[in-house]
């Protein structure tokens, strides 16, 4: 009797959950980015096309879920906030190659997979932030200079293991080779003012607090802080530097999208992907998150438009993804997070 009760209870819970429908008029999204950040965009898509969007957001495990669900997976597209997650999906052969004119026209080559297994929608630069008071303008203009001993005890970053830092280190490996990159990382580690901790915004805050003079962070965090009344005074104490603008360009990462191999609503999914690359959506997306549009024909908007012009490093993101396991080990070897 007790078992029946338990079964009945769980059955109740099951019926409560809306079954992901494979019916027309919907598109199902597994997202590594928070729903609320996607919402304005997805709402606009639904308004324009009448296609309803369904989202599951998680930071881990979505690739495993997709893989195990196999051909019956309800997911049509996966959206990620960095290159390593999305290339992980490609490595597991979970994404479909998409040969699509609109997407190829809207997204430049270095921001998409050669066979169309993923597409970058927006980009963000990995920026250097310096104290307005204590660091002269132009005192640091490249990532390489972060390892300069003159910054000893003056730099703050988040954990070296964070995907954003791993991607930056991977790009250093791609440009300078593993040996040079490791020396650079060691130099950067030796310059740290404190044990890596917190998020990117905390590093900007640390400059305002006088804990350090130089920090590394993604461009949009600075934008968010400038827009938040409480955080603006903090953000106004730092200067944003676009590193390596004059040579190879600033290291960028993407927020991207990939079509799943098992997509039950393939046409709707492609419609969503095309829409997200369109000028209209790129404006909404970039403005909402203070990112740079992936579509080169769309100018940056909002606060981002007031900054220097981004000269992005054109190193293919695929290459960055390939170096990331090496970068992870490097972080361990120099004991960066200690």
């Amino acid at each position: 009797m007790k078992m029946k009760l338990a079964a009945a209870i769980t059955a109740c819970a099951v019926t409560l959950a809306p079954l992901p429908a494979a019916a027309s008029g919907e598109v199902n999204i597994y997202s590594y980015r928070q729903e609320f950040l996607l919402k304005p965009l997805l709402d606009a898509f639904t308004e324009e096309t009448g296609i309803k969007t369904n989202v599951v957001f998680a930071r881990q495990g979505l690739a495993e879920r997709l893989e195990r669900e196999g051909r019956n997976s309800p997911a049509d597209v996966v959206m990620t906030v960095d290159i390593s997650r999305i290339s992980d999906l490609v490595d597991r052969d979970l994404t479909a190659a998409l040969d699509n004119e609109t997407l190829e026209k809207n997204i430049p080559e270095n921001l998409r997979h050669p066979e169309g297994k993923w597409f970058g929608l927006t980009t963000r630069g990995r920026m250097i932030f310096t104290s307005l008071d204590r660091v002269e303008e132009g005192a640091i203009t490249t990532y390489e200079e972060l390892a300069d001993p003159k910054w000893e005890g003056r730099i703050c970053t988040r954990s070296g293991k964070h995907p954003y830092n791993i991607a930056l280190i991977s790009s250093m490996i791609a440009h300078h080779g593993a040996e040079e990159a490791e020396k650079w990382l060691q130099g950067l580690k030796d310059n740290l003012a404190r044990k890596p901790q917190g998020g990117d915004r905390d590093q900007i805050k640390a400059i305002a607090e006088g804990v350090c003079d130089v920090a590394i962070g993604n461009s949009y965090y600075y934008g968010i802080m400038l827009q938040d009344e409480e955080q603006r005074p903090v953000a106004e104490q730092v200067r944003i530097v676009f590193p390596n603008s004059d040579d190879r360009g600033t290291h960028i990462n993407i927020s991207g999208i990939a079509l799943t191999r098992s997509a039950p609503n393939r046409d709707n999914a492609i419609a969503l992907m095309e829409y997200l690359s369109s000028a209209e959506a790129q404006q909404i997306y970039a403005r909402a998150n203070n990112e740079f549009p992936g579509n080169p024909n769309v100018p940056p908007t909002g606060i981002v438009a007031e900054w220097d012009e981004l000269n992005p490093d054109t190193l293919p993101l695929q290459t960055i993804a390939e170096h990331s396991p090496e970068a992870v080990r490097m972080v361990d070897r120099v004991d960066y997070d200690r």
Partner: protein
Amino acid sequence: MNQQAAVSDVPVTPSPLTPRRTSKRWLIAATIITAIVALPVFSIAWLAFFPDENIWPHLLETTLPRYVWTTLLLMAGISVITLSIGLATAWAVTMCEFPGRKLFEWALLLPFAVPAYVIAYVYTDLLQYAGPVQGALRDWFGWQSARDYWFPEIRSLWGATLMLGLVLYPYVYLLARAAFLEQSPSLFAVSRSLGHSALSTFFRVVLPIARPAVAVGLSLVLMEALNDFGTVDYFAVHTLTAGLFDTWMNLGNLGGAAQIAMVMLTFVVVLVTLERYSRRRQKQYAGRDSRAPIQRFVISRPRQWICVAVCAAPILLGFVVPAVVLGHYALIYFEQSWTSDFLNNAANSLILSTSAALTTLVIGLILAYSRRLHDTRPMRTLMRLSSLGYAMPGAVLAVGVIVPLAAFDNQIDAWMRDSFGISTGLLLSGTGFALVFAYTVRFLAVSAGSLESGLQKITPSMDMAARSLGRSTTATLLQVHLPMLRGTILTAALVVFVDCMKELPATLILRPFNFDTLATYVYQYASDEMLGISALPALIIVVAGIVPIILMSRSIGSARAYSQQ
């Protein structure tokens, strides 16, 4: 097979309980349940055989020794904090009379309603440079920047230890209090009359008797601590769990991560086994006179105030401070954060948590009772196996849940397609069932463990009497044990319920589309460093946890009164 083992494996005391004829049913039920509940853990164990590459040389050479050391320090620190707070307060409210005792009885459970990641955000907000504490100090002393003074860094090992200790001590408190309540006061009186002081009696009589319950509480605390990722990640404390996620997410090596999970699991199993082994010869049953009312000590005024301070401090730090900070933000950001989704999310949380609490309770009872009927090694092994889910980080367990459920769904689907040309799609994956299943697997240890220790305290002569009076094993359970276990049952249900309300990592991964619980809703914003907007739903988790805490705490107290009638 089990029968044979049962015969050969009864070295200490031949169980007087094992009924000869009806025995099979309970054993079979327990076996089936364990087989299902242990599936996710076995899935992870299976994944551990297929790593993308061998991670150990790199780990051993670089970070592993430090990860292990940090983990041990964290666990030791949390043990000290939770044991001292939990035991001292449980003893005080059970045995001493002082102002506010009745209030403290339930208020001491309040920090339990605060998720660990939330308290971590709150204290960071308070104690960081820009926070009110350091701001006030700077104004006071005229310091200009962080370079002018030293302030303890909350984002550190001690910070994580304190945060986790503050929200986890209620496990020890709850189980210790239930154990103290069930103890026969006459034992205490005898000890005192034989010349032992109250303190000496506590350590020599009360604590040893309460030890199985306290051990269950502490092992729950340590497993929670071992598996916590949110807090240690936020505080940049590198434990084994951090290494596990690093291997999984950054190296993309799920097999390697599963191996680390297995190592952690082994560690927990060894710890629990050692504790059990050290009291293998002990058997405790409450005497018949446990129904005598508790005679609380009448203590002097100053001592009464010490009791008040001891009980008030953890509530203040673990509940009042976070609640006030969250309340403050909730007011400021009310406009932005109040949406119509709230009722929906709250309803999701409530329904899932209630379902999971009832499921774990029923299953836990079946397991614990089978264990009582068959005190054999195979049964004990089943019991341990069924509890392993708790010793795994939630996100890893979620993968362990996905593997068998998706395999099951796809098998059915393939069979239906072949036989009838119908696709059934995914029946269980990505539904509420998957979530309740995950919660059950994860929190079964909580209910089974406390029910087991509760049952252990009931003397076998109760069963013998009931059975000789013609009651079946089921009737004995329902008519004899359940009424006596009322307090324990409520405790178990309460703990599982609140745990489920707070559960985050597995919920995130397993949930259906467009489905939020309060916890996932909080996380969406908090993980984007938007404590302000997440304050209101976080506060609601806490408040939602309070109501059942008060209700059930009252019932636990009255369970004794009830059984005294």
